[in-house]
């Protein structure tokens, strides 16, 4: 687990579910939203271009229509003047009718070439115009102070041989209105080649155009403007710019070199779409188109922000819906995951309790039959099974503990039968005796015993009951008691065994038996009389000799058959001779691989022990057995009895 991923793993299922679902939903929503935004933006942009184009075209159309309608009249008059001489009177009437023909025509003149109207009249240009009161006034232009031949309105059409719109201008005298003059040349063509005779002019008010264009409003703050051939603003929503600023000075003012480029394109009569940002970084779109008749150009400006206002509103709505959906989805996810994890959590709580050992915990009731419900039921079954098992185990353990404690008591009673105080007869120096009974875990049936028959005769015995447990312990107790009672009658060891056998065979249906070796030692002379009932032969350790097994008379185990007979044998012990009696717990002790300790090892160990006290001999053999069976459990009692004859008269 990497540290980075640790928190989400440590957090619950609900958290992870919510995280994954909400993350992917947000991602999907984001993609859809982004696509929608880009697509709708493109769509809006397209519409705006179309709208701006239409608007511009319609504006251009309106301007042109107006200008063309105004152009009609001077052209018509010019045609009338071609090849014709008119009287002063007629001429004035014609001019006055032109002025009256349109409200937009502010004034008009017919200016002749020198001497073209009348010989001797160098300047002839009667000017008819509307005065402030609405009346029509006539005046003569030209003279020494006003040599109109060199003025643009006259000289340009003359040189170009075509009608010309002048640059617009403010007419100071006419009430500060925007004007432009249309000059149409007329000719004398009767001589073949047309000869320029003069121009017909009409001063046209552009106020209405200016107002119409200035009034154009697009979106919230979009507007239209009109520039002249030199880039001067003819119409602009900001009235102060009209005729004072040009698109180039505006570009300068706003520090927008791009606008200057656009301005150049505009006065060149091009058409285009352009996007730029103003000084405040506010982006705008600009669409522009020329007015061919005059060489002017119309521009339409739309703030981008307003273009996208609808989209922004839509986006806000979509985002709002998205956020609401997200919240709703979060709630749903949390609800679903809670509904899954809540029972799981309570289940976890319950199982933790169970793990702690509280098996009486009540598992949450699951109404649902889903996997969690199944799990809960399984856990409950497990809990009940565990509870039953532990109950059973407790019972069993208790019962076993009771049995074990009873066995322990039985064991201690059994052990209390045996003489365990050594040395047992500290006042006797003719012999030395030592015995040990190393009980197995279970109550076994080994026994040993020794006692004086009289002052000079020591009786001793060792035996092994064929079974284990309480019956064997009882059998052993009976045997020992019987033997002591019978031996004290001062009879031969074989007779002792025969009588004990007879008693033990009475009603012994369980075929339990005991092997037994018993002997009587005459302490005065070392004479040992002994008999055997199926017991292992003791080791005879004569001083200065190799250890040897005692030769035993045949004899059946006690309790086997009533008719069994036993024999007594005799040998003489010399002072220093020793006897080692043992049960098969010694020779049949096993190591971990079930190898027997066996007689050979016993013999070796007895030899290795060398001459020494009985306690040392027994202890050394016992330790050797323990070493041998290290780790393997002791399955049988280990019993040994050692006796050294020291000889008479040492007392």
């Amino acid at each position, binding site marked *: 687990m990497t540290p980075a991923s640790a928190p989400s793993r440590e957090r619950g299922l609900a958290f992870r579910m919510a995280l994954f679902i909400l993350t992917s939903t947000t991602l999907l929503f984001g993609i859809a939203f982004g696509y929608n935004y880009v697509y709708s933006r493109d769509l809006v942009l397209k519409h705006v271009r179309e709208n701006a184009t239409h608007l511009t075209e319609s504006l251009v159309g309106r301007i042109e229509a107006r200008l063309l309608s105004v152009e009609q009249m001077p052209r018509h008059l010019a045609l009338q003047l071609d090849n014709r001489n008119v009287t002063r009177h007629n001429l004035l009437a014609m001019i006055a009718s032109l002025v009256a023909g349109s409200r937009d025509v502010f004034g008009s003149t017919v200016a002749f070439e020198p001497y073209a109207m009348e010989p001797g009249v160098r300047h002839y240009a009667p000017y008819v115009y509307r005065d402030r009161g609405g009346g029509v006034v006539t005046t003569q232009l030209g003279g020494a102070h006003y040599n109109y031949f060199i003025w643009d309105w006259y000289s340009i059409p003359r040189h170009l041989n075509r009608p010309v719109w002048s640059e617009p201008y403010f007419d100071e005298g006419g009430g500060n209105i925007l004007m432009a003059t249309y000059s149409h040349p007329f000719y004398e063509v009767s001589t073949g080649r047309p000869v320029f005779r003069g121009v017909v002019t009409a001063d046209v008010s552009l106020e209405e155009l200016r107002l119409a264009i200035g009034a154009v409003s697009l979106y919230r703050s979009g507007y239209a403007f009109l520039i002249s051939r030199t880039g001067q603003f003819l119409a602009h929503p900001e009235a102060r710019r009209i005729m004072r600023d040009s698109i180039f000075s505006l570009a300068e003012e706003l520090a927008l070199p791009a606008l200057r480029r656009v301005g150049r394109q505009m006065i060149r009569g091009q058409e285009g779409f352009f996007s730029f940002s103003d000084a405040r970084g506010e982006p705008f779109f600009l669409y522009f188109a020329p007015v061919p008749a005059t060489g002017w150009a119309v521009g339409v400006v739309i703030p981008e922000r307003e273009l996208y206002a609808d989209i922004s509103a839509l986006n806000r709505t979509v985002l709002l819906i998205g956020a609401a959906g997200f919240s709703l989805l979060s709630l749903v996810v949390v609800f679903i995951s809670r509904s899954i994890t809540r029972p799981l959590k309570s289940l976890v709580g319950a199982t933790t309790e169970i793990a702690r050992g509280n098996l009486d915990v009540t598992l949450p009731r699951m109404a649902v039959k889903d996997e969690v419900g199944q799990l809960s039921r399984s856990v409950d079954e497990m809990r009940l099974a565990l509870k039953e098992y532990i109950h059973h185990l407790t019972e069993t353990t208790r019962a076993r503990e009771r049995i074990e404690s009873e066995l322990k008591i039985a064991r201690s009673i059994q052990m209390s039968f045996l003489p365990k105080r050594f040395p047992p007869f500290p006042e006797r120096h003719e012999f030395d005796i030592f015995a040990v009974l190393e009980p197995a875990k279970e109550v076994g049936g080994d026994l040993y015993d020794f006692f004086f028959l009289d002052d000079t005769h020591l009786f001793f015995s060792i035996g092994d009951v064929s079974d284990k447990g309480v019956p064997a312990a009882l059998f052993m107790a009976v045997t020992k008691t019987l033997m002591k009672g019978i031996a004290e009658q001062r009879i031969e060891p074989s007779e002792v065994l025969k009588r004990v056998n007879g008693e033990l065979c009475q009603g012994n249906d369980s075929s339990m038996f005991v092997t037994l070796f018993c002997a009587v030692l005459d302490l005065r002379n070392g004479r040992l009389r002994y008999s055997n009932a199926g017991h292992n032969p003791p080791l005879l350790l004569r001083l200065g000799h190799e250890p040897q097994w005692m030769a035993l008379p*045949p004899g059946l185990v006690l309790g086997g058959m009533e008719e069994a007979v036993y024999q007594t044998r005799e040998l003489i012990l010399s002072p220093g001779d020793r006897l080692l009696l043992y049960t098969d717990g010694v020779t049949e002790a096993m190591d971990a691989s079930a190898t027997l300790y066996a007689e050979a090892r016993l013999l070796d160990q007895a030899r290795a022990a060398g001459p020494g006290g009985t306690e040392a001999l027994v202890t050394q053999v016992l330790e050797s057995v323990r070493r041998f069976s290290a780790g393997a459990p002791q399955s049988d009692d280990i019993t040994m009895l050692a006796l050294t004859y020291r000889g008479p008269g040492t007392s």
Partner: protein
Amino acid sequence: MECVSQKQGQTITIKVTGRMDAVTAPGFEKACAEWIDRGEKDLAVDLSGLEYISSAGLRAILGTGKTLKTRGGSLIFGGMSPMVREVFEISGFAAIFPVYDSLESALAAR
């Protein structure tokens, strides 16, 4: 321990292999008891495969022998290893049960 028994003529032969101790001896006793309950009286036990016999094993043999004796039957042994033979000798079992060198000679002696 493993007990394989079969009827050969009037005699039930039981071959014992392995170890006969407190754990396994009841198995031997039960195998014998099943035959005896069916009325069989003559059992010959082949001990050539017996590795070890404890006092519990002896007790099982003694129990079986006593049962057969009360019913007028017989329990004979054949084919003992020296160690098992020694146990038989020491315990005096060799004196109360007929012991032969092999099962064949035991059956032949019958």
